[in-house]
């Protein structure tokens, strides 16, 4: 399978934080979610991949053969958007269009207008315009997304696109993802970060889990759902089951957690119920394990 990005041992040192080494893939033709708690290093990794910030070591290979993010051809093919304040706040939609049109070779002003209308942001060609600072956080994010989607790119890299959106807008974001991928079947890819995967479950194909600056698990969602099982049981059996589980939490009457599917047989001897986890349940289980290891 081709990769839109192949991340080979990227690191970045800060005074109080160390990212990496990160080894991960963003498969071509799919939507990849970067999942992790706040402070896990998701934004730093995305910033490095998009040339927003420098790296200490390692390499990223884009589209199979490109490694220099300063290359304009590569910049044009990537549609990046940060989680907040992507543009100066005193800008109007028109200024956004004026700037992005010059900043990239593949901006389509007509499409930008259509997207703004679809997102109910108004017409960027109109005289009287609101400044970004006057928009709600959700509408700001919509404006940022419109500016990115109005470009004909091959890879979207979006940092926390869903966190400021209301439920309806999140649903629309998922639709946009699938639309983007299907417009050029198999040639386009998406990488987005989130700390709340539940709303994006049905728009996620590949998941990369991060904790404390490191990638702790990754794979196609359908494969991960076969690799792991969700286990429920009575509290009295929790101590017996725990050694066979990845992570486990419980109360006075019951426990729940995830385990490797190969332990299903063993766990069933402790009178447990086993089912396929959702991506959300999987995320909680995997991230909980990372948190426990950290303590």
């Amino acid at each position, binding site marked *: 399978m081709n990769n839109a990005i192949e991340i080979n041992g990227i690191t970045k040192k800060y005074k109080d934080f160390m990212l990496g080494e990160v080894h991960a893939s963003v498969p071509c033709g799919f*939507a990849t979610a970067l999942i992790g708690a706040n402070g896990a290093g998701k934004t730093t990794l995305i910033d490095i991949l998009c040339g927003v910030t420098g790296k200490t070591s390692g390499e990223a290979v884009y589209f199979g053969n490109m490694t220099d993010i300063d290359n304009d051809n590569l910049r044009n093919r990537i549609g990046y958007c940060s989680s907040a304040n992507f543009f100066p706040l005193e800008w109007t939609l028109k200024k956004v269009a004026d700037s992005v049109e010059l900043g990239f070779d593949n901006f389509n002003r007509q499409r930008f207008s259509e997207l703004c209308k679809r997102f109910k942001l108004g017409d960027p060609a109109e005289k009287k315009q609101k400044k970004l600072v006057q928009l709600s956080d959700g509408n700001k994010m919509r404006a940022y997304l419109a500016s990115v989607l109005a470009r004909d790119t091959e890879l979207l890299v979006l940092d926390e696109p869903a966190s400021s959106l209301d439920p309806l807008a999140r649903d629309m974001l998922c*639709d946009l993802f*699938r*639309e983007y*991928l299907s417009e050029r079947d198999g040639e386009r890819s998406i990488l987005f970060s989130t700390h709340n995967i539940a709303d994006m479950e*049905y728009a*996620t194909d590949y998941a990369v889990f991060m904790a404390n600056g490191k990638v702790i698990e990754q794979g*196609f*969602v*359908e494969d991960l759902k076969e690799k792991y099982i969700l286990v429920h049981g009575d509290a009295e059996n929790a101590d017996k089951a725990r050694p066979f589980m990845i992570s486990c939490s419980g109360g006075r009457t019951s426990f729940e957690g995830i385990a490797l599917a190969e332990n299903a047989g063993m766990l069933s001897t402790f009178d447990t119920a086993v089912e396929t986890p959702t991506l959300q349940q999987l995320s909680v289980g995997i991230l909980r394990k990372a948190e426990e290891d950290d303590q």
Partner: protein
Amino acid sequence: MKIYQNSNEPIYKQIAVQLREQILTGKLKAGDPLPSIRGLAQDLKISVITTMKAYEELASEGLVTASKGKGYYVNAQDERMLKEQHMRQLEKHLSDAIYSAKIAGVGLEEVEQTLEMLWNFDEE
């Protein structure tokens, strides 16, 4: 096609079941293309990888073939294979029936009677 997102049956299985049925009943004929993977994902509001897995399952059963870069096409189903497929379905449903019978403590004889009754009822 309809999908239950909150069912215990994995979504890819639901898709595979419905497409399999369309192929076996001849609704989808030999040489017909399946919807594009990402197009179907968009229509059903599910992930791309889920549709892909459904298609791969159908391909592994020999019902469809992936044509590089062009998507999936329905294979010509030979009579014997088709019968075998139907038999497999039949066995699966009967197994379910036996499972229910055993839970209810219903004996083989009673099951046979029920089957006969239903069979005749259906023919009327």
